[in-house]
């Protein structure tokens, strides 16, 4: 009965600063959130995915993992959005069924919470509340961050998780000194891992922050190893805990995103084509409707369509038709003049092939069916023309170093049929494996010449109807997807006569079988496609290069009111941008100076403030560097908003540098006061700039052309002025 003896006490520590900052943060981000009731800039892009989620249609977006899209869709779910909106152009009015406020709520909340988090981070780094307050206020009044978080876009969410990861790591690191393995220690450690994986889950660039946190954690762990007051077991426990929290948990969380994603999106849709047949068959509708109930094992006499696994330039099926190769090509080389074999990107009756046993004549399936196994020799008979798939030592039309593939026509000119193919199942588990529909990836090796049936990817000229060229690749070593085929549609052939068979080929397939890919297989395929699908890089009016970002040499016009000249721009607070860049430079120079001095055993700073200075630099300047520099190496089209995560870290560095200068470089009280006054003046000017640019941030006020012209402080800024 302990609680009777001692009173139950609840002590609450409320930092009013944080509360106040949260309140103003919310106010600045949520005010008139639904206002331009029109599609603003990239909302047009993310919106379509929200619709897909609402309708539960499968899609593939190579720009990032699904977590960010899911968060946006969550907003739509809360608002009861049914997904019925055509996201086709920027500036289109939202119809009444679109819950704009709800859709924009989550990014806005994330943006608002970044403000108190900036405070917390600087505080946890060991700097004064004043500096912390400064950092938070700068984040609050940074126009670009406000614009970006008030719309249905992902950057603010990404920044939120980036900051959360850093903050929770700092909390964890600080509790490490006092109470390792306590509850809060575990909490913050786990939260670090979770936040990291969320950041990665929102956008791939989140991975840079993750690596930064991992790097800092690794350095700290290395120090821990060197700490000889700890026992070996204790060190081991520490290392294990970090490994689990920072490696295993993020990986698991990342998988979880995909699990939810795939669980949600169960219907087939426009992006199916990119995926493999097996993946498509696992979606409702689409291919599943066709393949549902096909026999699993391919047998002699089976009628199949063969799809190439490579899928580039387009997914296509092995195809043949009545036309023959021209006797002489344009280049002057000759051909065999036999029937063309191509790869055709559309479903067609000419895509059907029959698997034939070379030792027998029949083209129907026995009862019971005799399955085809790995290593068997087969012939492939084209269903409609009953000619045999053949290759020989004749140069292919467009790839002269490869063999031509044809359907054999006997012209009685001493060119015998070479139509035996050995079946090679690539993804077999044993050598006696049976050829399975959809699941087996097979290669066809020509028995006479060892050539492999391959899609060359070139488009044939007009005589080949612009279909894709299929060749026999000699001497091909190694595995390449363009040589791999799989059976997509499949049925057991029943009709002996050609006429009946043609009828049979024209009829849709039926019979029953269901196939389920495991989650991991679907995940790995989806992830692989996301990383490899290249959207053609297009030039954009507002694209920019990383060099333009540092001094804000560019802007993006997000939206223009259809009638008035009210407009929204992604345009930063230039005072903050410039001084943040300056602060980074000052930090780097000071750091180098101190480092050299320390090397000479001159210790300008007391040890603890040196450590704080280094940690702040590693996280803030490091955060800026890892979020900025990699863009120089990226091939894709870049926009100003890609710089925002880096900018946020840079802003955090600003008060840190100020405080350092005031504490360590100002020698007298007078200097300190002067410096303080300067900082206040500077901050006032930043506020002023922010207020001046406010109409372009919120787009709530229509400005006159002269006012707009006055706002164009840099020639490179593109501010829209209506010509009346």
């Amino acid at each position, binding site marked *: 009965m302990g609680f009777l003896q001692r009173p139950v006490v609840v002590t609450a520590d409320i930092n009013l600063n944080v509360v106040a900052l949260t309140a103003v943060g919310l106010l600045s981000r949520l005010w008139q959130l639904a206002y331009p009731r029109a599609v603003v800039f990239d909302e047009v892009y993310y919106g379509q995915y929200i619709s897909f989620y609402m309708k539960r249609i499968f899609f593939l977006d190579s720009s990032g993992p699904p977590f960010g899209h899911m968060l946006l869709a969550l907003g739509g779910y809360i608002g009861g959005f049914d997904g019925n909106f055509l996201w086709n152009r920027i500036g289109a009015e939202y119809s009444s069924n679109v819950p704009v406020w709800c859709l924009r709520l989550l990014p806005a909340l994330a943006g608002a919470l970044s403000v108190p988090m900036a405070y917390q981070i600087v505080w946890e780094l060991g700097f004064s509340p004043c500096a912390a307050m400064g950092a938070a206020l700068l984040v609050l009044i940074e126009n670009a961050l406000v614009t970006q978080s008030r719309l249905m876009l992902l950057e603010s969410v990404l920044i939120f998780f980036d900051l959360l990861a850093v903050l929770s790591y700092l909390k964890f690191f600080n509790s490490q000194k006092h109470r390792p393995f306590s509850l809060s220690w575990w909490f913050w450690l786990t939260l670090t891992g979770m936040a990291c994986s969320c950041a990665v889950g929102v956008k791939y660039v989140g991975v840079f922050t993750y690596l930064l946190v991992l790097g800092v954690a690794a350095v700290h762990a*290395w120090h821990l*190893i*060197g700490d*000889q007051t700890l026992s*070996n077991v204790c*060190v081991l426990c520490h290392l294990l805990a970090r490994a689990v929290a920072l490696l295993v948990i993020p990986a698991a969380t990342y998988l979880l995103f995909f699990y939810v994603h795939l669980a949600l999106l169960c219907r087939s849709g426009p992006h199916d084509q990119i995926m493999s047949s097996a993946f498509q068959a696992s979606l409702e509708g689409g291919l599943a409707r066709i393949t549902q109930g096909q026999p699993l094992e391919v047998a002699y006499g089976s009628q199949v369509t063969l799809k190439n696994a490579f899928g580039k330039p387009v997914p296509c099926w092995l195809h043949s038709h009545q036309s023959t190769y021209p006797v002489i090509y344009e280049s002057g080389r000759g051909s065999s003049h036999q029937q063309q074999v191509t790869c055709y990107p559309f479903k067609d009756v000419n895509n059907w092939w029959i698997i034939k046993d070379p030792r027998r004549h029949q083209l129907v399936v026995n009862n019971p069916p005799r399955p085809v196994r790995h290593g068997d020799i087969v012939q492939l008979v084209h269903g409609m023309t009953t000619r045999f798939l053949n290759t020989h030592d004749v140069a292919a039309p467009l790839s*002269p*170093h490869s063999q031509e593939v044809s359907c054999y026509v006997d012209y009685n000119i001493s060119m015998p049929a070479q139509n035996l193919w050995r079946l*090679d199942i690539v993804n077999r588990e044993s050598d006696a494996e049976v050829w399975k529909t959809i699941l087996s990836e097979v290669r066809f*090796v020509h028995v006479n010449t*060892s*050539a*492999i049936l391959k899609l060359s990817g070139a488009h044939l000229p007009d005589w080949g109807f612009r279909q894709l060229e299929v060749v026999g690749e*000699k*001497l*091909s*070593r*190694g595995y*390449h997807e363009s040589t791999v085929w799989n059976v997509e549609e499949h049925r057991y052939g029943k009709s002996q006569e050609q006429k009946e068979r043609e009828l049979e080929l024209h009829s849709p397939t039926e019979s029953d079988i269901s196939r389920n890919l495991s989650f991991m297989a679907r995940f790995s395929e989806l992830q692989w496609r996301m990383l490899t699908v290249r959207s053609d890089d*297009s*030039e954009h*009016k507002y*694209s920019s290069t990383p060099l333009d970002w540092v001094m804000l040499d560019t802007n993006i016009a997000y939206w223009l009111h259809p009638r008035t000249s009210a407009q929204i721009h992604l345009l930063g607070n230039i005072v903050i941008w410039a001084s943040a860049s300056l602060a980074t430079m000052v930090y780097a120079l000071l750091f180098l100076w101190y480092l*050299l001095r320390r*090397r*000479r*055993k001159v210790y300008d700073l007391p040890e603890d403030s040196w450590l704080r200075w280094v940690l702040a630099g590693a996280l803030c300047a490091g955060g800026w560097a890892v979020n900025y520099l990699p863009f*120089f*190496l990226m*091939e894709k089209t870049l926009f100003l908003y890609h710089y925002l995560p880096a900018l946020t870290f840079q802003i955090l560095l600003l008060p840190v540098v100020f405080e350092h200068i005031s504490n360590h470089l100002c020698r007298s009280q007078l200097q300190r006061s002067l410096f303080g006054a300067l900082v206040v003046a500077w901050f006032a000017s930043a506020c002023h700039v922010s207020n001046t640019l406010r109409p372009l941030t919120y787009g709530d006020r229509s400005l006159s052309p002269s006012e707009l012209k006055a706002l164009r402080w840099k020639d490179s800024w593109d501010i829209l002025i209506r010509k009346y």
Partner: protein
Amino acid sequence: MSFKVSFSVPRPAATPHSRRCWELQFLEPVFSRARPARPSRSVMLRATSRLPAARAATTLSAQPRGRRPAPRRRRKELHFPGHPELPLGDFLAGRLARPRVPAGRRAILRRGRMPPAVGRGLAGSELRPRRGRCGSQAARAVGPDVAAEATARSPKRPAPGSRRFEAAGRWALLALVTLMSFATRFHRLDEPPHVCWDETHFGKMGSYYINRTFFFDVHPPLGKMLIGLAGYLSGYDGTFLFQKPGDKYEHHSYMGMRGFCAFLGSLLVPFAYLTVLELSQSLPAALLTAALLTFDTGCLTLSQYILLDPILMFFIMAAMLSMVKYNSCANRPFSAPWWFWLSLTGINLAGALGVKFVGLFIILQVGWNTLSDLWHLFGDCSLSMVRTQVTMGKHLTARILCLIVLPMALYTATYAIHFMVLSKSGPGDGFFSSAFQARLSGNNLHNASIPEYLAYGSVITVRNLRMAIGYLHSHRDLYPEGIGARQQQVSESSVHLCGSRAKLSAVTEPAGKKNPNNTERIPQHRKTLTSLSKFKADKLDRGLSNIGLLLIVLWLTVLIVMIFSLPSPPPSPAPTQVTTYLHKDYNNLWIIKKHSTNSDPLDPSLPVEFVRHGDIIRLEHKETSRNLHSHYHEAPLTRKHYQVTGYGINGTGDSNDFWRIEVVNRKFENRIKVLRSQIRLIHLATGCVLGSSGKILPKWGWEQFEVTCSPYLKGTLNSIWNVEDHINPKLPNISLDVLQPSFPEILLESHMLMIWVLWPLPIWWLLYELLGLHKCGSQISNYGNSGLKPKDNEFTSKPWHWPINYQGLHFSGISDMDFRVYLLGNPVVWWLNLLSIGLYLLSGSIVAVAVQRGARLPAEVEGLSWVLLRGGGQLLFGWMLHYFPFFLMGRILYFHHYFPAMLFSSMLTGILWDTLLRLCAWSLACFPLAGGIHAVGILSLLLGIAYSRVLGREASAQVNLDPLGEGLDSAQGV
């Protein structure tokens, strides 16, 4: 103990930090207390500190006296402990002798042994303050000292003969290694007597040097120059064509060039041997490395042909070796050997970079090494601040001189020679600006003269500033149906460079190529009739409505009438196609006119009026009399840009024909100087800027490059042009020589060209591409050479294929009954290397953690782990630098790109196994035969490697080219 303290004289200059920690842990307290003063030769002292006092006394007593004995003894001391003398002695004389060593000496060997690297390697450099020689030479010359040391140390002095024997043994070993290497490389060097693989490129380029004809390649010239020189010296006359792999050399002398490459390739083995010896001070390690490289089939094959790789690898290894040597001289800065090795490092860096840009990686490695070196120097607190500043200044200057200035000077010098030697017009002309071409004898611009400033009425050609894109061009063909307005095409054409473009070049050839400089040749673009009928057929195919068809037929008739009866003006201005084109022809000529008037500016009565920055002009196509025109229509390929066409009749068009001309580099006032001024053409009505998208038009555009008007006013080179040919009878001609670029400009131009040739990639990737592509560059110089290229037949490999030896490269003999050469590593060697890297990471991290945990390692283990961390670390770093960047690279990569990295990984293998076996022997020291483990292990590794080579030979007798086999069954095949 106090006795020893008194000897702690000169403190090592730049003792690495970590080493200090170790000292602290291992030295007696007295000693460590003495440290702050100026402790010294810690190695020796430490070593001896554990000896019985009497023996220590004998060792040390000699020191204070006279200068002469001291250095020798020091060296002796330093080398002996960890060092190869013993292993060597044992190794050569048979390990069995070892147990007979008296107990006292064994004690020295075992316990007194210093961390070898501490004693000698990187850090150890400081330990011999006044020694006359550098560590490097010491490594070789160490023999005599060994014996002396033995005499000093052990009561039983070996016979003086053994000293000589050991010295001779060292030299003999080096000679043996070199001999083996040469023997393997030169064995059957003349086979096959036909062109193999890339010999077709590099041999040809060697011939160009001999013939002094100008060519262009994406690699710097040094390697090819050396090949040319070797050919020249060996009597090759440059007449062989090197047309395609498989061509027989017949009577041409090719052995000189092959011999030169094989010579450099053979030197790799002794270089690797010496480097490992220097890093680990262990002879078995060095031998192991040498064996790995000698018996590796890949290295062997790559060294035997006329390729850049042996030259490149030679310079890389030489740079590495001289860097390591110079590191070991660090204790005697500014001595002759120090300068020698430092400048040799610089020279080799220049060589590496001058052969291929892959040389950048070794530059990075040396740079990193230099930085850390300086950092240690800087942290040496034994000197006062002022003295440090002076010393630091001297060090810094020396390094800048030798490692930056010297290589740059040499690199530039190679280019100077390159341009000097290649003075005749050749296949590379078309890639360079006309100003440059004017330098080449035989080129039609040589000694030509043109007016200097642009005036109205001038007939000009306009060339895009982006290299290899070409001249603004127009011809009578129309844009086909459905692509913008059916107006005259404006496009660019060019030599097509790589991959798919190379194929296209073959197609374009009939239309364009012949001789890029042949101004006389009129292209076959005038086949208007054929193309028109083609359009008709197209349209029929598409099944247009009858009315549409009628209209089109009508229009076509009108067009035909218009074209063939030019004097009579057609009823409507029918705009035609505009393109661009690299080769010179009449359709590249434009007349520059004022926008307002159509009067003939060439009228002698009018004064000459120069075109100035900001003027509004019209460009009239000379052949078709149509104006350069743009409008709000999407361009044929780049949908976001506007289409550019030729429009108007006899120069009369509309306001969409007006362009504002802007000079980007306005250092020649506001006038426009031929060849030098960079201009932009801004379309007046739409505000877009004329540029080339660099995309190739389909057949209807003759596969020339698309010209567009881009609304995005980004200042890329695509949208900048310059004026090349210039004809204006009213202006005085000046000689082009005045405009000839200076040498720095040529240098810059050729480097820019190397970059722009690999166009479609963003600039950040280009560097990598340059490193990865040599095919492309070679393609350029022989792009006209169609025919089967065996390399087309292979999948280009991926970086991850390489270390596992996944698939090789066909060097020769793609057809069946032929002499076959296949580049593939010896699987035993390569897999051993791979395993070693894994093992190294494992053992390295274990050691590092142990040190960080403050574990007390016995002296011997400490020494070994030091070798592992420092020496091995450097090699691992080298391997990573030469391997990982390839993962970032774009497209075309080949197996042979891995070989520089492979050299590093072989050296690492040598050090790793030697160290591991020593550790193993040490940990089993209680067993009598433990010492043998090391010897047996090394021997079995050596034998295994040699045996695998023999096996490989036999296997290669039946080269098995099973298309499905993953290809580990064939080595260098015959």
